């Protein structure tokens, strides 16, 4: 069995103080494994982003333990947490968060520059990764010259260029139309499958479901249930481990060929 890339055990997180104190997470345990794309779903305020921040070493839990590649981050100072983020975790944000004054190439190169990679190597790697996400023709474009989908692909390139073991994505399709949303999810699922990275996607968007190997549902700071995909007769199926509930949604093995159960929940096919 593959060791988890990120493992959280019995995490609680209390935010605020006094009368306004809120328990954002309450005993959450979760393991993110390489080669797997996990969707973290739930209503607003359910604790998804707080959990993502803790898994991404941006917040420290009130109690419980987080391990990155088996190493506990308990008591790690901010500088060490920054090193863990830099070396092991790639981030993708809903609003891309590219530096508007840098070209696509420099935005990707930045992730290597903060790690101290020599400029020549960093440039070559950044170009390669931009080619992987289909943007080799836009390396000199600035974010304002790119569409939302292209900006998100640059952000994905930035997340993966440093060979991070885990990719944490916060609503990566939230600002995108169907076509671009599909392209981004397809890219993320391929990153998980082809590069053996653990990919965790926080989303409200049910159209992302077909790309997931696992779906975690959260509510009120707790994990309600987890569903794992399985393929039966060439169709992808979802199986709730807690309730044995089988989601009545069937997809083909290849997400590109996915035909949605009903149109309102679908992404348009990827542009050829």
């Amino acid at each position: 069995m593959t060791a988890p890339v990120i493992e959280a055990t019995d995490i609680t997180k209390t935010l605020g103080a006094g009368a306004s104190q809120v328990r954002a997470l309450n005993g959450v345990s979760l393991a993110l494994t390489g080669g797997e794309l996990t969707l973290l779903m739930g209503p607003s305020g359910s604790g998804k982003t707080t959990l993502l921040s803790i898994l991404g070493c941006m917040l420290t839990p009130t109690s419980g333990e987080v391990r990155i590649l088996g190493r506990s981050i308990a008591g790690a100072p901010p500088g060490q947490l920054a090193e863990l983020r830099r070396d092991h975790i790639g981030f993708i944000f809903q609003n891309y968060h590219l530096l508007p004054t840098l070209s696509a190439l420099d935005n990707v190169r930045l992730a290597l520059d903060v790690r101290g990679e020599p400029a020549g190597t960093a440039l070559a790697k950044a170009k390669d990764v931009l080619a992987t996400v289909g943007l080799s023709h836009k390396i000199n474009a600035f974010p304002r010259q790119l569409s939302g989908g292209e900006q998100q692909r640059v952000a994905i390139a930035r997340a993966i260029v440093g060979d991070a073991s885990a990719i944490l994505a916060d609503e990566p399709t939230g600002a995108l139309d169907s076509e671009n949303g599909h392209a981004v999810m397809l890219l993320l699922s391929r990153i998980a499958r082809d590069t053996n990275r653990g990919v965790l996607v926080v989303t409200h968007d049910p159209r992302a479901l077909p790309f997931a190997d696992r779906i975690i549902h959260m509510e009120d700071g707790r994990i309600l249930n987890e569903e794992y995909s399985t393929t039966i007769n060439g169709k992808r199926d979802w199986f709730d481990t807690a309730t044995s509930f089988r989601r009545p949604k069937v997809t083909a093995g290849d997400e590109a060929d996915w035909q949605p159960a009903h149109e309102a929940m679908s992404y348009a096919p990827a542009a050829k």
Partner: protein
Amino acid sequence: MKARPTMSTSLIIKIASRNLLQDRLRFIATIVGIVFSIVLVNIQMGLFLSFERMVTTMIDHAPADLWIVPFGTKCFEDPSLLDAQDRTKALAVPGVSQATPVMIGFSEWTVPNGGTTPVFVIGSDESGAGLHPWNVTQGDTASLSSPNAVAVDATYFGRLGITKLGDTTEIRGQKARISEITDGIRSFTTTPYVFAPLARAQAYMGTPPGKVSYLLVNLAPNTDIAAVRNQLQTKLSKVEVLTPDEFRNRSRNFWLFGTGAGAALFAGALLGAIVGTVIIAQTLYSSTKDHLNEFATLRAIGSSNLYINKIIISQAVLSAVIGFAVAAGIGLIVVGMTARTALPIVMTPELTGGLFLLTVLMCVTSSVAAVVQVVRIDPARVFRQ
């Protein structure tokens, strides 16, 4: 053990320069703040240097090994007087080859077109190693021997109401004729200097008989200056025997610090530096605030505080370099414009270097508020924006 990362300066500078130039108006405000501040400091310090040179200019140009001055003399312009007979006693000290009397003091110059103006008269034996005019552009030192001959500086022609060599006037009711013209002998009091032979100078000032201001002592070759000084001090009463450096420092300290003039110039310079620092701090802080999301992104992707601080400090240093270049250009123009005035502003390589360091220091100090702000950014804010 993992090697410590080395950073790419080029990307840091690229981010810093583009952050600066993204808001052109704010960038211009930053540069204007730096330029005003540095030009103000430049002028104040240039005046200080000019003042410092001018208060010792007579001492600098007197060919003396030792100065015999009245006891308690505070500066070259001090009106205290010596007994002229001290010259004979000084010459009796072994090793003293010359003791040249010098007379200084204020007098009243009659402006040919009407009215009077104060002048500072310097009298010295024209034949000895006394205090003679220098930078002579018209006439010659020998011409001072002719009746009523005086030397003045061309800078003060307007004030003195004269236009050329040979013009005549009166000093304290006694005739004077311009027989020498100098260039650049300016007084920090803006009172024109008038050079004359010793006896005539005494007459212009109405000095009591048998009195002089100073004795300039010249020593024979290979004489022990300290020994001669001790002997002079022992033999002469109510006098002090000073080296040129000691007299220079005494004059400088009196005028620059005893009168508060130097402190006022320093205070002006300090004020300029403080105002500049505040302006730059404000613009850098607001620039950083506008780019908080970008700095939060950098923190989220794992950049160290050092990396981010380097970006902010690079912004400060870039502002400093550009601001200094403009300020130095303006400073050179100001120096050029004041070169021929009564109070020229002096620019030296040391002052230029010092101003550059001050500019960088001001800008880097200004970045502290921005650095503190960035260090406190919560990287998780990227999920909320």
